[in-house]
Every structure is written in C-alpha cells, then in structure tokens.
C-alpha cells in the first residue's frame, strides 16, 4: 500500500464510523426525545395520543388520590388548564397539593395522561426549572417559591 492508499483507508474508516454514528443519532432522536409541555400546551395543541411527552406543573389542590395497590391519580395544572394523570407505582414523598411535579408518559385518547415516571423534589422550596418557566409564562408565578434549588428524588443523581 502506498502512503496515499493508507491515508485513504484511514480517512474512509473514520468517515464510515462517523457516518454510522450520525445515522444512529438521527434515528434515535426521532424516537426517544420528549418535549416538555405545560398542561395548557397539552390541551391546546392536540398532541397525538401515544407520543411520549414530559408534562410539568403543579399538583392541583385536592386532586391527589392514592388508591389501593399503588394506583395514584392527580391533576397537573398550570393555573389555566389541568390534565388528569394516572400512575402505578411509588410516588416521591413530596408529591402533594400545590407541589411542583414533572411526569413522563403519554396521553391516551380520552385525555388522561398515563405516567410512566413521576419526578418530584425532596426539598419543598424547590421548583423544577421547566415548571417555573411555564408558570411564569402563564402569569401564575409566585416569587418566593424560587427561594432555593434543592434535590431531585427521581432519577437525578
């Protein structure tokens, strides 16, 4: 092999691997990205049922019901709209009325949000940033909530 051929082999391997990686990235981006939505977004933009989304807001006062067999239901609100959420499993301790919450899941055709993950925070002073921004946009932001960042109980080491 000449020097030129060697260089060509090297470069084509590199380009090949890079192309493979770009393909993988584009392919997985189409399936595994979740857009963050406020309840207003979710209700008004008619997201197709079954699309994975992330919903954030406050637990609407008086809606949290912890049923038998770890079935939990509550409504997530941003002050304008509210979306009913159902979840099966253990919810974080600080999931309570008025608390900021982020849930991952899908909307079913009836308009109920089926959550496969519920994230709330350990520290009661904490508000997820996405939720805080969404509340600000809706004009329901209360300044003293933002006192201090805390700790996630969810999958956030």
């Amino acid at each position, binding site marked *: 092999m000449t020097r030129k051929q060697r260089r060509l082999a090297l470069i084509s391997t590199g380009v090949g691997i890079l192309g493979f990686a770009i393909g993988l990235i584009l*392919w*997985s981006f189409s399936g595994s990205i979740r857009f963050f939505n406020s309840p207003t977004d979710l209700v008004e933009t008619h997201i197709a049922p079954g699309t994975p989304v992330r919903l954030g807001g406050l637990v609407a006062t008086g809606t949290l019901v912890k049923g038998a067999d770890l079935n939990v239901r509550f409504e997530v609100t941003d002050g304008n709209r509210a979306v009913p959420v159902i979840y099966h499993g253990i919810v974080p301790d600080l999931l309570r009325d008025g608390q900021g919450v982020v849930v991952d899941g899908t909307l079913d055709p009836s308009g109920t949000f089926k959550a496969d993950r519920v994230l709330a925070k350990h520290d009661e002073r904490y508000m997820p940033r996405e939720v805080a921004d969404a509340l600000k946009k809706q004009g329901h932001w209360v300044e003293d909530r933002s006192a201090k960042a805390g700790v996630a109980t969810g999958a956030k080491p």
Partner: protein
Amino acid sequence: MIPELGHFALVLALAIALVQSVVPLYGARTRDTVLMRVAEPTALAQFVLVAVSFAALVSCYVTSDFSVATVFENSHSTMPLIYKFTSVWGNHEGSMLLWVLILAVFGALVAAFGANIPATLKATVLSVQSWIAAAFYVFILATSNPFLRLSPAPFEGRDLNPILQDFGLAVHPPMLYLGYVGFSISFSFAIAALIEGRIDAAWARWVRPWTLIAWICLTLGIAMGSYWAYYTLGWGGWWYWDPVENASFMPWLAGTALLHSALVMEKREALKIWTILLSILTFSLSLMGTFLVRSGVLTSVHAFATDPMRGIFILVILVLFIGGGLALYAWRAPLLKQGGLFAPISREGALVLNNLFLTTACATVFVGTLYPLALEALTGAKISVGAPFFNATFGPLFVPLLVAVPFGPLLAWKRGDIKGVTQRLAAAFVLALVGIAAVCVVEGRPVIAAFGIGLAAFVIVGAITDIVERTGLWRAPFPTTLRRAIGLPRSAWGAAFAHIGLGVTLLGVVGETQWGAEQIVSLRQGDKVSLRHYDFTFDGTSTRNGPNYRELAVKFTVRRNGEPIGIMQPSKRTFPARGMSTTEAALMTRGFSQIYASLGEVTPDGAVAVRLYHKPLVLLIWFGCVVMAVGGALSLSDRRLRVGAPKPARSRAAIQPAE
C-alpha cells in the same frame, strides 16, 4: 481570624500564579535559565498557600464556625465529624477550593518530580498550568469566596444536604476532581508543545504517567459515584445517562482514547497531531463537565448554587481555554512533523480504530447531552433526551470496539498478521461461543444477554490470551514461563488487567440489565412477597433517632427455599433542619449479586410501599472498574514511565523490545 488567613493565602496564591504564568514562559522563549527556574519554587509555593487556605476552611467546618457563610449554609453542629469534614466540598465554594488544591498538587508534583523533562518544556508547562490556576483563583475570589463572614454569626447551621451525608462524599468528589484536574497536565503539555513547535516520542512518555494517574482516579471516581447513586437514591439504578453523569463520562472516553493514542506516539512517533488534539479535547471536556455541573445549567444534586454570575464566569474560562487551545492548535499543529508509517492492519491501526470508536462514542454522548441545552437556548423548546437515545447510539458504537479489544495487543506494530492473531484468539472465540450456548441453555431468555456474556467472555479471555502468548504458557517449561511473566513489562500486565476489567464490567452490565427483576408492592405487617427465589416477610416497623435525623425502619426476613438467609432493614430518614428525607436502601450481597430493598411511602393505615429488586452480577460493574484502575496502576509502575526515573542509557533503549 482563621478564615481571613485562608482568604489571604488564596490571594497570595493568585499573585504567585500570575508571576508563574509569565516569567518562566518568557524565560523559555529567551532561553534564560534563571527565569525558567522561577517556575519550580512558585509551583511549590502555590501548593503550600492553597493547602493553607484549604486547611483554614477545614478548620472552620470541623469547629462549626457558623460565622462563615458556607459553614452556616452547609453544616450543622450535631453532624458526625466525618461529615463535618466532607461537607467542606459538599458545596460550591468549598468544592472549587478543592479543585484548585488538586490543581496546585499536580503543579507541585510536576515541579518536584519532572527532573528529566527538558528545562524549556518544563517551564512552559508550568506556566500554562498556572494560567489555569490563576483563572480559577480569580473565579473563586470574585464569585465564590468560601470565607465570606456573616454578622451576626448564626447560632446553628442549616445542615448539609442529607443525600450528601454519606461516606461517598469522602471519595467521589475528590477522585473525580483528581481525574478532571489531572488532565490539565496533559493539556498544559500539549499547549507547551504547540508553543515550542516541537514534539517527539519522549513527549508522550512524559505525559503518559500524568494521564494515567488522572484516568485511574476518574475511573474510580465515576465508579464510586455510580455505586453511591445506586445505594442512596432508592431506585436501584447505577447509571441514568443523566447530564451530570455524562459530564464525567465524556472526559473518561476522551482520556481513554488519549491513553491509547499516546501509546502509538511513544512507540512509533505516529499520531502526534491527533494526540495533541486529544489532550486539548480531554481537558476541555473536563472543564465543560465542571461548567455543566456547577453553573446551574442543569438542575441536579450537583448544582449547589444557581448564581448566574458564576455560570457566566466559568463559561468565559471555558471559552478562553478551549477556544485558545484549539486556535493555537490550528495555528501551530501544521508545524509538527508527521510521524511513522503503518499498515492499516497493525497495532497502530487497531489503536486508531479504538480512537475512532471512543471519540465517536464520546461525540454521541456530547450531542445527547448538549442538544437539549442548545435547542432551548435557540428556540426555547424544552426537550429531554433520555436513556433510550444513549442506549441506541452508544451501544452500537461500543460493541465493535469491544470486539476489537482483544486483537489490539496481539497485533504487531507497523504491520500485523490478522490471520495469525485470529488463530491465536481461537480459544477465546470458542469460549465465547460456549458461553453464549451455555447462557442460552441455562437462562433461555433474552438472546441479547447471551451475546453480551459471550462478548464479555471474549474480551476477558482475549486479554488473558495475550499474557499466555507472551509468557509461552503450556508451550514452554513452567520455570521459563514464570521468568517471562516476571520479565514482562508492567505495561503489558496493565493492559491485560484493564481489558479484563472492561469485560468484567460488561458482565455486570449484562447481568443487571437483562436478568434483573423488580417488585413494587404495598405491604402491611405479616405480609409476604416473593421475588425470584427469595421470599420476604414483613416483620414490623421501628423508629429511632439519629444524631440529626429521625429514622423509620422496616424489618424483613428473607428466605430462600424456606430457609431464612438474613434480615433486611430498609429505612427512611427525616432531617428536620432542612425538612428533607432520604431513603436508606438495604442491600444483601449474594456472591456478585445483590438483593435491594428500599422504602416508599408509609400510609397512615400502616401500609408501606416497598421496592424490591434482584440484581444479578451487579457488583461486577464496579468491581470491573476497580480492576481497570488496577491495570492503570500496574501500567503506571512500568519502569519506563516512572516519574523522575533517570533516563535509560542510549544502548539500553536501542535493545528494548517494541512490545
């Protein structure tokens, strides 16, 4: 008085760092040995001053001096002594002080033990090192002074974040920082080489020990962080592809690539320009990790404080060093001479392949981590990129890399014999196939698990094959083998161990992800539940008071085939000072597998939500990392890399085998 002393020492360190950033560099450019020699005492003085500063902060924490703002914010007089000590870096200000302390330690080590480095290179390296130090001293003094006083002094502190009140805090941050900051040395060496416009094989030999130290520490730091998250968060997960984890994983991937490319450069003088670029990129990723984690861009347990000023300041440091480094690279790299030639099928070729896969894998992690941030900044849309993305991109890139791992060490330098190597790996192939078949027969389900185990077996046996081949085990008489084994360079043992560790980690990953079982149930006293071969009986709850928390524990008796094998007591702790609670998982180790129990909520009627997990082979994940680190340490002890060792005589160098 003591906090002011600490503050003053830090200001002095900055002054000295400024001198060290300019004088030795000017000396190196003008060949003035007196000016060049300024670097050594200044590097040592920086270390002493930062150590004094750090000791001052430690004494404030240990004596619970709440007149110091960070102590008030992050400590409590009732905390056990070890947590009072570790909470020094359990907050933004203190952790940055630890960062510069480690930076100063590395600088001092280069000054003290770099006797065989040419004077001009050493002076330039120490100057560059001091630029980084100066930037971070300014950052600390201007935005994150850990010695700020409160007046009047509060009577009691606000306590350390309970999640951080753990032994993990004593190990994870210092090890991670040793890794991050250790890569600053290879960065400084790369910048110095670009400034000098000259680089050779010896350069790689001087850089390699520092890179290895950083890599070992980063490996252990990441492993410790992973284990800590596993047992403390109560979710039983060991890796979430969370941005803060990725922030530490990217420098690890780039650093691993750097270790391998520096090898090619040292032995064959090839890949010089690439190695320089990797050195710059690795430290850039370390800096970016610090930025992502500390700036508050990402909200997590690691983002202690969200002061926008700090974020912007770190961003400026980031842009200066990464931008400056890459600009210098673009300008000066063409001056460096091209190195040796090699055929595509050769040890060099294998290492190039390793580098391509590692850096591409690193790039996919980079995209997945930064794309949401970039998208939000540009369009305002908020997205989350989760584990499925990383599994789908990182996995397919890492599998071919793992397949290639056993080939690398067996191929000859310059021109390799792929057929011969394949023959020598026949045993490994066969064992891998046997492994796949055995797993399929015994476990049956997921076929991917069987292939995972087979791949891990191939990597492990392949690494052992290399040692067997070199020592001539089974072919030569045993004493000869033993003599050869002793005579084998430590770096060969190091490579074998590191690759075995990689395979062992893979075993753990496959076991945990493919065969793990979980059960989430709501239980009352007397209830029974079973998971896999284990039966759990809820015996009752108890409460007790810790030094700064209240604890509710649940007692389970665990049985296997009716025989009691132990008691598990997962608990929940409530910390009144912060109004927070933590989950203390109970772990029962069975061989390399673990049973994991953690508590959810306790309802008023006495039912307790419980998560039970069976995690097969899970301990191998971290054990493999430890084996990798041992490999790194063995390689570090190799004679030719010994820091401060006298130069080997010319004649000896000539007859050294090119492994």
